[in-house]
């Protein structure tokens, strides 16, 4: 009843293969995008930008990257934090070495540099699988952070080891630094996420995505039918690291403004992004976004409810928030081990027939 599909006929294969085949979904998607792009920039303030939207956008991009590698290609990776650091430090070096370069190019080039690093650390995947590959990528995490701490060239020899993004402008508006308008950074990150989620969706539905999924499902069989494991696995690492590198660059330039390698990109970040895609749903674009929102936004929501609305003391609120988040993760994974995206998919299927059960 909610989904009025009566009268919806597809007259071409192209229309039939659309991402949102049901008109209700399509209109809903564009309504949300229009609201996000046209209404929110006028309502946003510093708190919503710094604590809600930018963290969500940055980690959604990272979760998309990791989902491509782990969810679609089946290569477990615990090096996400290290790759984000590569993106952040690359963008810092580019900003300080080429002051005239615009932010969009810097983000894309940082992503490309991280893709190169990702390919390097993805080479072990050709010989080892599963948990053992996770350990190899864990080495990437620790090695990259150690490297950024060790060689002063990466942080321009500053006394504190911190890197900070100098102020840059785009179309005359300040886009990095402390004097940015929240709407500007919000729109920039939203635009990046929109475009690259679109790209990811199309990549995973195309030839590349299918070869990734073939490797994930049974790599020996895939090799037999002609999927090149070398190219496929390395391309997964490349694309995934590209996304994660971009997210690291946006983390430094637009969200935080300053970062210190060991503190900003520890092993916890790698675990968090992995949890995002597991809870959101492996092998699902929507799952990456939902998982990112779950892990990044729920603590903030709970803190505002406990301390703001209920007025609890701050330490009790913090402990309760940690416990509540943990229990929610357990509940969701018991209810639907495939992740929230699978729950959403099932709900939509049921809603299409509602009020009929089948």
């Amino acid at each position, binding site marked *: 009843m909610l989904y009025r599909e009566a009268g919806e006929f597809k007259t071409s294969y192209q229309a039939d293969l659309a991402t949102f085949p049901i008109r209700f979904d399509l209109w809903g998607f564009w309504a949300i995008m229009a609201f996000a792009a046209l209404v929110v920039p006028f309502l946003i*303030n*510093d*708190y919503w930008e*710094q*604590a*809600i939207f930018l*963290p969500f956008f940055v980690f959604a991009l990272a979760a998309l990257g990791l989902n491509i590698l782990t969810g679609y290609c089946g290569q477990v990776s615990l090096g996400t934090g290290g790759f984000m650091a590569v993106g952040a430090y690359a963008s810092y070096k580019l900003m*300080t070495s080429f002051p005239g370069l615009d932010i969009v190019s810097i983000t894309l080039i940082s992503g490309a540099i991280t893709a190169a690093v990702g390919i390097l650390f993805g080479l072990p995947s050709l010989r080892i699988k599963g948990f053992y590959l996770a350990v190899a990528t864990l080495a990437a995490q620790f090695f990259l952070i150690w490297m950024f*701490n060790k060689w002063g060239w990466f942080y321009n020899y*500053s*006394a*504190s*080891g*911190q890197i*900070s993004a*100098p*102020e840059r402008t785009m179309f005359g508006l300040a886009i990095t*630094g*402390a*004097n940015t308008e929240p709407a500007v950074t919000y729109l920039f990150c939203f635009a990046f996420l929109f475009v690259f989620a679109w790209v990811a969706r199309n990549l995973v539905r195309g030839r590349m995505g299918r070869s990734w999924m073939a490797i994930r499902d049974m790599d020996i069989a895939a090799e037999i039918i002609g999927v090149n494991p070398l190219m496929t696995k390395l391309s997964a690492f490349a694309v995934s690291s590209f996304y994660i590198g971009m997210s690291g660059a946006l983390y430094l330039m637009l969200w*935080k*403004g*300053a970062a*210190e390698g*060991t*503190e*900003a990109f*520890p092993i916890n970040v790698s675990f968090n992004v992995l949890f995002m895609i597991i809870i959101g749903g492996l092998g699902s674009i929507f799952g990456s976004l939902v998982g990112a*929102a779950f892990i990044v*936004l729920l603590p*903030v*929501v709970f*803190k*505002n*409810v406990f*301390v*703001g*609305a209920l*007025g609890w*003391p*701050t*330490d009790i*609120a*913090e*402990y309760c928030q940690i416990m509540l988040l943990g229990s929610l993760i357990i509940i969701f994974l018991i209810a639907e081990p495939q992740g929230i995206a699978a729950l959403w998919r099932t709900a939509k299927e049921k809603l299409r027939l509602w009020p009929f059960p089948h």
Partner: protein
Amino acid sequence: MKLTKLAIVVATALAVATPAAAEMVFPLLSYRTGPYAPNGIPFADGVSDYFTLLNERDGGIDGVPIKMIECETAYNTDKGVECYEATKGQGALYYQPLSTGITYQLIPKVTADGIPLHSMGYGRTSAANGKIFSHIFNFPGTYWDAASIIVKHIIDQEGGSIEGKKIALVYHNSAYGKEPIRTLEELAKKHGYELMLLPVDHPGQEQKATWLQVRSEKPDYVLMWGWGVMNQVAVQEAANIRFPMDKFIGVWWSASENDTVPAGDGADGYKAVTFHGVGSDYPVYADLQKYVYDAGKSAGAGDQHGYVLYNRGMVSAMWAAEAARTAQKIHGVKDITPAMMRDGFEALDVDEARLAELGFAGFTVPVNVSCASHGGPGLGAIQQWNAKTQTWSIITDYVGADREVVDALIDEDSAAYAAENNITPRECPDAIVMSMGEIVSEIRAMQSRLGELLSMLEKL
């Protein structure tokens, strides 16, 4: 879906938290959870109790009640920035994040938003240069002052020369821990000692390897720049390898009862630099007992009274209250804005007499902040732990840092920051001339006199 629910929740939260009329909003960015809580809790309790005392005993600062908004940061930069963004819209007058990492993040933000930040004895050391860092204050001293004072104490202990000695620095591997390295390297060149650097990763519980290295390399002195559980573990490990504790000297953040009590007798003789007194033998504690503790209004569990970090929280609250009072006096209004609070910090002058009036006689160093110098007197004394009596006691007089070395480094680092961020240094009036605050108050006095004269003339 999620967004609408979030909007309703946050709207309710903000609606509930709208500020009442005429009060001073002092946000308290604290950490009562996480690995740094052992040191965050006494500091937060000290700040809370002092502001409660002002509210109960005096009705606030010159009649304006103080409103504290506590926000949990867990010593985490993300949460610290979130707390800042959440509280700044509620009329926050100053920030004391008690975290070098959060301070680094907030320095450009507070400057853009016009709110002063007091990074008391921590944070970015070069913020002592007030010409470049207009909104950041780190009086009464900086990490570079602390490093220099400790080295001076070592020279004193060694009878005048430390040529050829080996000094190790065990430091928290973060912006906080890396701060003194530059100064210690410069002082190594000047005094001829060898510097050994031993980083310890957050949270600092894995130190066995570090202290085995200390045992094998046998440095003559070990300095520590630790925080949170790292302090306790370091003191315990040093006691385990039987390192001579009187040659183990920590910075002012590495020396609290929470750090030394767990190690028991092994910590006897551990030293640290400090900028305020120890214990509860001060007149202000009598007032605290009467108005706060006996009235059941003490913060937290009420078990931190008289501890080193509790005292430090109180002294930071005292300076903030005095800055607010100075701001009220300069601008002639009771209800001050953050910009006025910044002026108050910049004109702060708390001398021995004023300290005695406040009940802090002999408690800390006199502080005189000026436009060009936000880093205070840079004085420190050495305190030592006595494991039998379980107390700290100050064993030296207050000495200053090697200003020649430290000032040169401050100028260099702040110039680099200004170049990187396109900041033009402000003009500061000559120190001999009256401070801006004094000029303004003189003009106001003249204004009122002329007003009286005019009304007298009109009556004629």
